[in-house]
Structures are given as C-alpha cells and as structure tokens.
C-alpha cells in the first residue's frame, strides 16, 4: 500500500466511521478525532496519552437505577469506531485488556465496536523499554483488524518520504474495510491474541521472581520517600486498569447511575476499610478510631503498583503488565524512572 492508497483508505473510513487517529498538534503526536483524512500520521512518535480510554473509559455507566432495581445501561450496538495508528508497543496493551475483561459484557460490547488499525513503527529506545521488536511471524499473537507494516528502507522517523506498507487483515471486519475501500493486495492472517511471555531466564521473569520471592524493602522505602502519590502515572499508563464502583444520583429521587471509574492504588481510600469496631475486637488496640488501611505507606503503595505489573499480571495473564512505553516517567513530577527502578530490582 503506498501513500496514495493509504489516503484512499483513510478517506473511505472517515466517510463511513468515526475515526480516532494519531495526528500532529503543535509538533506533538496526539490521539484525536479525525476530521481531515490528510492529518492522520503514522510514525514512531508515542502519543502522550495511550489508547486506554477507548477500551476502558475513565467512567462508564453500568446501570441506571431506580429504587432497588438495576437496568443495564444501554450500549450502542454495531456502530464502529476506528482507532487508527496504534503503534507496536501500545498494541500489546490491548492483549492485556482483552484478557482482563474477557468475561465483562460492557467491555465486550465496546470492544466489538472498535476497529483497530495498527502499525509496526516502534518508538525510540526511550519509549520502548521492553525492547519490543517487530517480527512478521509473531503478528498473529496480537489482536488487530488491519496491520500496516512499513517496509524497511521506506521511512524512518517522521520525515515524509514515500512509504510502502505490507497490509495484513487480522479479522473479517478488517478484510471488509480494506475491500470496500478498494484495496485488495492484503494478506489475511488469523489474530489469536495468544502472546505469552513466561520465558524462564527472561528479564521479566527475573523481576517476577525478585518481587515474589525476594522482597527488598529498601528499594520501596527509598521510592516511598520520593513519590507524592499524585497518581499521574496510573492515568497515563496504558496497563493501569484498576477501577471503583460509584453510585451517582440524578435529580430524580431514588434514581441515578452505578458507574465504573478509574481508580489508582496511590489514592488514600483505595485500601481503606471500616474502622475498628465499636464492639470488641478482642484486641488491645481496639477502638483507636482511625480507618485502617492495608496500603499504609507510600512505599507499600508503590510496591503494590510494581507488584501488580511485574508479578500479579504475569501470573494471571501470562504477559507482563508493562509495555515499556515510559509514559509513567514522562509525567512523574518527582522523576521516578521505571527503567531505573527495574534495574534496581534486577540487581537486588
């Protein structure tokens, strides 16, 4: 597919679908609704925010309630949204969402309405901490509808030279849009989304082992002294998906929405439970009157964050809970660098 054919695909899509695409704004790449087909850029720059909100929105309504009854909030059926320009590092986070929310009806109906167009540009080493490499033979382990593999020597960086893509359709949906846009020269592959990374001896397994079996409090205490619990890292991180359930009343008495919203393990209430009982606890310290928390210190919180990504997620989902994009470092007001932290964990 050459640039002319690419433009044709994008104009076809913009006529028929709502598109969110990577675009350039003030010299930066951002993800935004695409109104002008010419503005879509595919290159190796990492958008500041990830694609997370399209899969796991910041807040979504699960139910409308009226009295005690819960009516599942309506979900738009069949209206497809195109996500255009997911790079090869961010593409990995979609495998994680698909696994975590495999049995979630809200996620599944939203997911069915997404059409994913990904590409093989890799962000520079600073935003590719996991050293992800693009290999065509591994494509079927991922999950996408259309994949555009820029041919070597066709472009590097964001210089606008002539780009040639090899095109893969990863699903029937992908095949359909390619055909309808008039492009036939694609290869159909079956996306299995089966990526599995538990390889013994890999750095990721070393992190897992260190976090699980060789807890080193020094590392976390030191980070705990620096981190200010702002939670920014959890917002930009594509793999942070913790949430809370909240009831939001409407103006009508007894009515409202039960919502699911992003939460962050850095926030105070995350692990708070009801305070010591007014009845006895059979303990000498009963009745101190403070709500007990389980993640009491900043050190425990930041450890919880790393443990989730590098131990709990790999145990549960067979992939690392970090795609290595380095966004967390870019937003951290105190400069906590995951790359450095992982080196310390590795060497501990």
């Amino acid at each position, binding site marked *: 597919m050459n640039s002319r054919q690419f433009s044709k695909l994008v104009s076809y899509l913009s006529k028929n679908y709502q598109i969110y695409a990577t675009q350039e704004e003030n010299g930066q790449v951002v993800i935004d609704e695409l109104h002008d087909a010419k503005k879509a850029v595919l290159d190796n720059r990492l958008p500041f925010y990830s694609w997370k909100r399209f899969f796991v929105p910041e807040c979504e309504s699960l139910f409308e309630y009226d009295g005690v009854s819960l009516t599942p909030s309506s979900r738009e059926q069949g209206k497809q949204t195109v996500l255009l320009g997911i790079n090869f590092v961010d593409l990995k986070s979609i495998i994680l969402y698909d696994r975590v929310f495999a049995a979630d009806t809200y996620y599944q109906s939203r997911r069915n309405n997404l059409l994913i167009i990904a590409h093989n540009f890799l962000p520079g080493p600073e935003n590719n901490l996991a050293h992800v490499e693009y290999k065509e033979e591994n494509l079927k382990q991922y999950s996408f509808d259309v994949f555009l593999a820029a041919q070597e020597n066709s472009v590097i960086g964001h210089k606008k030279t002539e780009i040639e893509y090899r095109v893969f359709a990863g699903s029937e949906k992908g095949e359909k849009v390619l055909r309808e846009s008039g492009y036939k020269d694609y290869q159909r592959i079956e996306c299995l989304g089966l990526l599995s990374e538990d390889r013994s001896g890999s750095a990721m397994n070393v992190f897992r082992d260190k976090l699980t079996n060789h807890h080193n409090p020094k590392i976390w205490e030191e980070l705990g002294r620096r981190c200010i619990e702002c939670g920014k890292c959890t917002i930009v991180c594509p793999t942070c998906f913790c949430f809370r*359930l909240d009831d939001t009343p409407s103006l009508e008495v007894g009515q409202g929405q039960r919502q699911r919203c992003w939460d962050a393990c850095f926030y105070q209430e995350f692990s708070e439970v009801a305070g010591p009982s007014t009845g006895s606890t059979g*303990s000498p310290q009963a009745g101190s009157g403070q709500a007990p928390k389980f993640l009491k210190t900043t050190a425990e919180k930041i450890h919880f964050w790393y443990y989730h990504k590098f131990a709990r997620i790999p145990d549960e989902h067979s992939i690392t809970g970090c795609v290595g994009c380095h966004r967390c470092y870019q937003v951290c007001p105190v400069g906590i660098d995951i790359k450095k932290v992982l080196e310390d964990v590795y060497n501990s």
Partner: protein
Amino acid sequence: MINPYQTLTAQITDIKDEVLNMKRFWLKLDEEFDYSPGQIIFLSIPGFGEAAFAPCGKSDDKRTVELCVRHVGKLTGKLHAMKIGESVGIRGPFGHGWPLNNFQNRHPEPFAKSQDKLREGSDGRYEGDSSTLPQNDKKKNILIVVGGMGLVPLRTLLLNREKYLSPETKIQIFYGARTPDDFLFKENFDRWKKEEIDLQLTIDKACLGWNECVGVVTALFDKYPIVENAAAFLCGPPIMYKFILQKLQEKNASGEPSRTASGEPSRTTSGEPSRTISENDIYMSLERRMHCGIGICQHCAIGPFYTCKDGPVFRYADIKNIPGAI
C-alpha cells in the same frame, strides 16, 4: 454473557437488634441462593453503593440470607434505617469459605499457586505442583478463635454442623469480646454447649457478674488446653491474628513436637494426640476493601491473591510470606 454486577432483589423480612450498633437482617429472595460458610455476598442499595458481608444464618433455607451488620458508614447506615418490607440488592456469593467435610475438599488453589510451589509448565505457564500440597484429612477437629464480629462468618458452619462436618468432629471456640454485652448470637450459646461445643468466652476488662475469663482472646490459650488434632479457623481484626499466631507458635515450640513437613500429625512420645497446629492447618478470613467482587478491580489484592475471589478465607501457609498480608 452474564453480568456479574447485576443484583438479585431481596426483601427484608425481619430485623433484630443484635448488640449496640449491630443489627441482624433476614433477606428473602425469589430464587435460590446457595453459599458455603465463610463466603461473602455483596449487598447493594442503589445510591448508597455496595459492600461485602458474610452470610451468617442457617443455609438450608436457600431463599433466605441472614446478615449481621455493623453500622459504620453510608451503606450500613442506610441499611440500619430500613424497615421490614423494604428491598435491597444482593450479588454473589464470592470467594472461598472455610474448608469443610474434614478438609477433604482441599482449599482451592488460586490462579497463582503459592510461591515455593512454582514450576514452569510445558506451555511456558506456571503450574502448581499438587504433590506438595498438604493433605489435611488427618485433622479431625476444629479450634475456632474469634474476636468481636469474627463469629459472623462462622455461624452458618455451627448452625448447619451436620451438613458440613462429620459427626465425630469436635469443635472448640475461643471467643473474645470487649464486654459481656458485645457477644453476638448469645441465643445460640446454650444449644451449642448442648451439642458439646466447647465454647470459652473472654472479655477485655473485668466487670461485675462476670465469672469467666478476663483478657484478650489469647488469654484463653493459657487457661484451656486446645482440642487435639485440630485445624484452627480464625476471624477477627488483623492485630488479633498477630497475637494468635504468636500464641500458636509458642504452643508448638513448648514441649510438644511440631508436625512434620509432610503434614503427618506428630504424636508425643507418650502417644498422646497432637495439640499443636501447623501453619498448613491455620485458616483465617481476611478483610479488604472490595469493589468488584470478581478479581478485577485490584482493591482487595494481597500479593498474588484476590481476597474476593481466592479468599476471604486463606490458609496461613499460603500468605505468611506476603508483606502486609496480615
């Protein structure tokens, strides 16, 4: 695809004041609701949210769920203000309760098999090595140690003893409360004693008319020998666990030989049955903040486990090395 956040509607059919700040609620459902002792349910009052509670009633009436709820905040405050005939929502049950039937239903292994048992399976995923799992069937009896509200998730087990335990199982209960007025389920005490349950009570401070033990719940260990060949079921605040575990360790260290690593109950040289309890035979119910109930939201995570899904009852051996677990 089922919606795990959807609730069943339940009508409040009875309310009883239990102790100061605690009420019991009988909730009637239109369909059967089956749970195992120690599991949790989520109670929902739209506008006031949801929270986890442990059913505490007789489990043979499958259309009724009995809860014993302490008024601590928004949701529990609203529930306390509700009247017979009003309705609430329920979802669940979630997680794993107490091991039953003389523990032959081995406590289910959570997704991440506990730490030292890890090995890499042929498909590159980790698998538990089931051969190293302790077999608990040698343990016949149960020592229940509870503080404050801790008796709540154990009451179903006691009320439906014949359903969950074999007739030979002896039960001993060490129960601590702040004052005599704070004991829950006093109406059952006589029946339990008649059923030869060895119920021992203690209160925090001496008070008029109290002739039994005074002191925190561990004081009972110094007063009464614990039942032989027992597994321990603990429920209470985290601080209580620390003291009880310490006590059990002291007991294990003093005089009586501890159990062998293979889980064989050791016998004293005189052939006396074992009165020590190893960490494989200690089960405890943990409390964490919960939102989803199905192991996704991460609020209740403890190391590789979720309290809502893998707990709330855990075997001490499985969690003892996790920082912050207890």
